[in-house]
């Protein structure tokens, strides 16, 4: 084989490996609080808001704090440095992105999965409950 072809193939292989390696490192899994304690760097934890526990935005520390239960049943306090996000109360599922430190999860981002309005209809959609004039 011509040397150029060999160099070319090596370059492609090298580049692809580097790309996939970097890519693999930059993604994480949707996981639990337990894994969050073990992993360095940002983690995505999926779970639900625990309504019964206290939650609220503190004017002094400018943090929104609440309790979340992940998919393996562990409940942890989560701190979020912005006011309570808009769809928070109605979210059927939460994803908090951040790090675990000293038994508290510090989220720098939060995604809310809202009840799907477009797939199969909910009974609620057809109740004349909302008088939004």
């Amino acid at each position, binding site marked *: 084989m011509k040397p150029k072809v060999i160099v070319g193939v090596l370059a492609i292989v090298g*580049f692809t490996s580097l*790309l*996939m390696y*970097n*890519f*693999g490192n*930059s*993604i*994480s*899994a*949707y*996981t639990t609080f337990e894994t969050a304690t073990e992993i360095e760097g*940002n983690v*995505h934890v999926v779970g639900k808001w625990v309504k019964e526990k206290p939650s609220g*935005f*503190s*004017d*002094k*520390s*400018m*943090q929104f*704090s609440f309790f979340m239960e992940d998919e393996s049943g562990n409940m942890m*306090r989560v*701190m*979020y*440095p*912005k*006011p309570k996000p*808009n*769809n928070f*109360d*109605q979210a059927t599922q939460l*994803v908090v992105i951040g790090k675990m*430190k*000293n038994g*508290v999860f*510090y989220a*720098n981002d939060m*995604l809310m*999965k*809202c009840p799907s*309005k*477009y*797939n*199969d*209809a909910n*009974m609620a*959609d*057809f109740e*004349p*409950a*909302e*008088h*939004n*004039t």
Partner: protein
Amino acid sequence: MTLGILGEILVILSFAAAIASFGGYLYVAKTLDYEKEKWFSRLYTSTIFFLVAASGILIYLLATHQFQYYYVYNYTSTDLAFRYLISAYYGGQEGSFMLWILISAVVGVGLIKWTDKEYRPMVMAVMAGTQMFLLSMIAGIPIGDGVTLGASPFRTLVEAMPDVPIFQTNPNFIPADGKGLNDLLKSPWMMIHPPILFVGFSMMTVPYAFAMAALWTRKYNEWIKPAFPWVLGANLCLLTAIFLGGYWAYVTLSFGGYWAWDPVENASLVPWLIGVAGIHMMLIQRKHNSAQRSAIFLALLSYVAIVYETFLTRSGILGDASVHSFVDLGLYNQLVLFMAVMVLGGVALYIYRYKDLPRNEKEFSVLSKEWWIFWGATMVGILGLVIIVGTSSPILGKLFQANPTPPEISFYNNWSLPLAVIIAIMTVMGQFLWWKKINDSEQLASELLKPIVLTAVATLATVIIGEVRNIPYMLVIFAGYFAVFGNGFIFFSIVKKKPKATGGTVTHFGFGLLLVGIIASSAYNSYMLDEQTKAYNAAVKAGNITDENGVQVMDEVDMIRIEKGTPTVVNDKFRITYNGFHIDDKNRPGEQIYNITIMNLDSGSGVDLNPVVYPMLQSSSMDHINWAVDPDVYTGMFYDLYLYVAGSKYVNDKNAELQRARTQGMSTSNIALQDETDPHAGHDHANTDEIDQTLGFTKGDSKTIKEFTLTFEDFVQVAEEEKPANTFVAVKARFKVENAETNQTEYVEPMFAVVEENGERVRHAHSAYIESFDLTIRFSNVVPMSDQIEIQVYQGDQQVGGTANQTQIGQQEPDWVLLIAEKKPFVSVVWLGTFMIMAGFSIAIYRRWAEEKQREQRLKSA
């Protein structure tokens, strides 16, 4: 025959015509039976009429609020402005597919007219084939067992949701109102963004079609000329659509940027990048008669990228990964099939003809323009590849994790910035070698001297003035300036002699500007904070702050709290003043418009910004008001000021009011919009923007307001005749009111009732008026599970008395807002760069169009 059924029939007719013309054109491509081709062309053309009619029907249904149709119900409501009723046509997947198909049909008819007969059958076969697949997405043909082929925009609610209980009892039920359009999408930018995007997608089909035709007919050179303007046009449209989307995100969403590497954004960027790479390969083929394989490959790849990205965004596979991924319509399998056919069809034909493809064995020398253009285009293609890898994380990520998340943003930045640097430098090299006769490397170096010197000076100046300490950023700035100055020099050297040929130069110039703008606005973006917050953040960083629960606070604060009447200095240079807010129901009900002034203390000039907070009634409910924000942006030459309201006293009070009402099982429907009005009072005290000053009493309590002492003596039963209709519960409260000045005592018994209205419980607060004191006591609430009541007191028309809950009488918490304010340097350069790229494309398109016109003239006169 309802309109909906007619619409479905029209779509199915188009589908049938597409299938027939697809098969027909393939037949003609094989047999070269051009006589029969006329019929297939007519069939293809007929789809335009069917689609226009079907689109007209859909728009009519939307405009006349026919909520028995699922599409109308889902995306519109009776209060939606007319222009959004029209744009709702492409607001959902089904409709947007239909628009795409319609535009594609028009493009196809143009091709029938303009394409040489040798290529035409295969080109049209491809066009018809893509129409076939796209139409299958909206055909809505039942194929047994409750499954339909595609999702029809004309399907009725009953068809779409047969299991909803209300249809069991009343199959003819039509909802009184639809779900309405998400407030964020009610924007002129979002109105034009989709149509332009679909024009881009439709145009990008053409190079694919020509490449396939070239492979099929084994005529590998003649296709470049006719296909070239289509790639240029497609890229211009895609870029415009991308710009509109980015600008919309910047001024509407609160993430404060114009690009988030969201899958939907990447979906239009990647085909654009591949289109750019393809354009350059096609240029090489024209000038140098080489790179035929690359040109064909990239032409095929651009459309494949579009189909792939369509699959990612519409199949639901990105579900959790993107905040704005579209609704899953169950089209997964069809989209996979579409992709498979486009990819395999192209691959198969390409491999089949591989040996036949001309190969220019002459290597490009490093000192040739072809070398730089070829490898520059390759870099652009690689950038597209990197972005596709990241965007495909739900699929590719499975190699690494069971449940993969999207990649961190740093992944995209770490790859795209170095690639952009390389590309920027290569544009200059390519342009110099293209336009100047350069024989050796010394000559090249001497030509490049002036631009390099200017670049170095500009970079140094920027680094010093902008206090740039980050070395990678310096490199990007250098590369950006190099592209600006290098291409700028070339522009001035050719603009007099060949102005129409400056398209490429202008585009590259714009790209350089864009790079510099991106670094300035993203890397040097800063939150505007006051000294107090900065000190707090420093303490947080040192680990000294814990919150009320003893938990350590780790995150710094980006927000500032400004009280009305207390201007605050931020970033040592600006003074922010909160002037108050007012409520304006005209735009949206319950919308608060806040007035904030930001004054530049150095220059003395100030800007007035009006960020908005409004309740999203569509997604609010009985338990919860969903507040949305509309940022306001000051666009300046040197920096933008970006502002939104993250919280305010008014919003807090409204939420508290709702919570109070909830705990009593009372109606909460109007709280977001206004305070309650008392329909039975002699005096109507409905205040829409004043905060309630409610006084709480338990039996026996006395409170003093001004000269009056009010004592709540006891509850009094209400006689049947006095109760309003449909009363659930009613009670009176007897108050003794003593006037210390006149020594008079009066008794009043205002009534409070809870009444059933339309299946809901509504509070009715009645007032009692003491004429001699000109005092009104309004019995506004009974706190359940307690013996506490709440009243409001008015002297004349003025409300008097203390504030809600435990604050003392007469004291009022000052109005405040929580703001997120950002200073974003040189966003203007980002827009300028983008516009220059668009201008460059336009010049190139104009040039090709002019050349074509000239060619036609010559042919006519010959």
